[in-house]
């Protein structure tokens, strides 16, 4: 049977859908090129370069950009990530527990820390010593930054883990239990290893989110050897009254976040294929 509905009667319908689409796309290209040309012609390039990409100011950022700022960003992020990972796993196991109070506590924590701006948590941490005299977060400035990122990250990571644990079929636990494993043993040996595989891509995305949120530690009032990328760029920019250092910091973030984002997407694709 030939498909008559699609074969337009020759001569009558002069513009087939495909032709229409081609024309519409050509128009879009023309508009786009016009806009680009306009920007190139009318932007004040010398002034832009002067303010956002001044080579001698960029040079001032080296080598501390890497030896201090990027290093600290990675310390805050990695520390916060490990904290978030462990607390998140605990919260997820509590959320799925048969013990009701565990579920409540975990649920409450997740609601609160996902519902509050991360910035507020950091501000609270700076007030901890005032509120609790004699109390100090272990690890000093690093400890405070890691605590803030970890507390916030744990709420999100808990949800990632919960989804991962729930994605492991119930039959897996049943098979493990029927072999005589205790509930905890079945979780550790059978369920969690499978859940970890499932959560690797979203966890990579969580790491990227934490990396960006690590810029919030600047609200802890950090300075000197503790500055991370955002604070570092901001300080230099103020010093030279020039936005170039902020651009430099931005590019440095992208050097890490973009490859990680692609990695997460690749892992996600591989996971789908493996099914």
């Amino acid at each position, binding site marked *: 049977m030939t498909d008559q509905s699609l074969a337009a009667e020759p001569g009558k319908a002069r513009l087939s859908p495909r032709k229409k689409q081609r024309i519409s796309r050509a128009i879009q290209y023309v508009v786009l090129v016009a806009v680009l040309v306009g920007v190139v012609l009318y932007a004040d390039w010398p002034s832009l370069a002067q303010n956002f990409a001044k080579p001698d100011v960029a040079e001032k950022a080296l080598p501390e950009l890497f030896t201090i700022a990027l290093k600290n960003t990675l310390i805050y992020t990695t520390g916060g990530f490990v904290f978030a990972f462990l607390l998140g796993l605990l919260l997820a196991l509590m959320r799925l527990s048969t013990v009701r109070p565990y579920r409540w506590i975990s649920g409450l924590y997740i609601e609160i820390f996902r519902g509050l701006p991360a910035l507020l948590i950091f501000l609270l941490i700076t007030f901890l010593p005032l509120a609790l005299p004699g109390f100090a977060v272990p690890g000093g400035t690093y400890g405070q930054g890691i605590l803030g990122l970890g507390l916030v990250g744990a709420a999100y990571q808990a949800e990632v883990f919960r989804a991962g644990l729930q994605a492991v*079929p119930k*039959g*897996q636990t*049943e*098979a*493990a*239990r*029927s*072999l*005589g*494993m*205790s509930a905890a*043993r079945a979780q550790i*040996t*059978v369920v969690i*290893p*499978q859940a970890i*595989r499932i959560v690797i891509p979203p966890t990579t995305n969580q790491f990227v989110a934490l990396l960006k949120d690590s810029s919030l530690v600047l609200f802890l009032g950090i300075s000197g050897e503790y500055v991370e990328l955002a604070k570092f760029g901001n300080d230099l920019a103020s010093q030279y009254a020039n936005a170039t250092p902020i651009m430099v910091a931005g590019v440095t973030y992208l050097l890490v976040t973009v490859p990680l984002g692609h990695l997460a997407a690749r892992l996600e694709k591989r996971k789908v294929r*493996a099914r």
Partner: protein
Amino acid sequence: MTPAIEIKDLHKHFGKNEVLRGIDCTVEAGQVVCVIGPSGSGKSTLLRCVNLLEQPTRGKVLVEGIEVTDPDVDIDAVRRRIGMVFQQFNLFPHMTALQNVMVAQRRVLKRGRAEAEKVARENLERVGVGDKANSFPAQLSGGQQQRVAIARALAMNPDLMLFDEPTSALDPELVGDVLAVMRKLAEEGMTMLVVTHEMGFAREVADRVVFMDGGVVVEDGPPAQVIGEPRHERTRAFLRRVLHPEG
């Protein structure tokens, strides 16, 4: 002698749904008992109550004289003696066949690596998949997966085995391999409680056949009687559907 399994007036409700409504059933040591019945009649639930994957609402389940429904009983210890084989195999996908058969020996029975591996290889050999030790479940056919699952249960040296429709998820040409393994187990004297739709297997291997419908045992007797000359109309109707699905 103490029966391997004794089920007395077993009730199981899921909310308002009364799935088991007073089951009495005994399996003597060394016996093979096949449970047949329409889908939804509570066969799986009955099996899962024996090793407490489901908590009975009322009634008693005794395994080798021990009341598993007693809250003071260490259920993990009881389960060690009961092998279970599932319709969907439920192999651990992140472990090889060998690791699947070793893991509970190591973690539950605390056997050493060398011993666990030896026992695992023997049992994989026993079910005819010795050459698949290093394959992951995803690389195996359904029939091979189910045989690995049987080896995994056997490696724990269970006193009895529960099978829940072990061949229902298999392509027809793979059913025979799994049934052959089960037949051999029965000949070796394993106590088995088997939910199945394989009437040929039930007729030839079972000491008794139990027909369930609507959460009760309708008929219980030797296969020649329950399958050959059923007394109840419900049994006859079910057998007509199973044996002549076209008609």
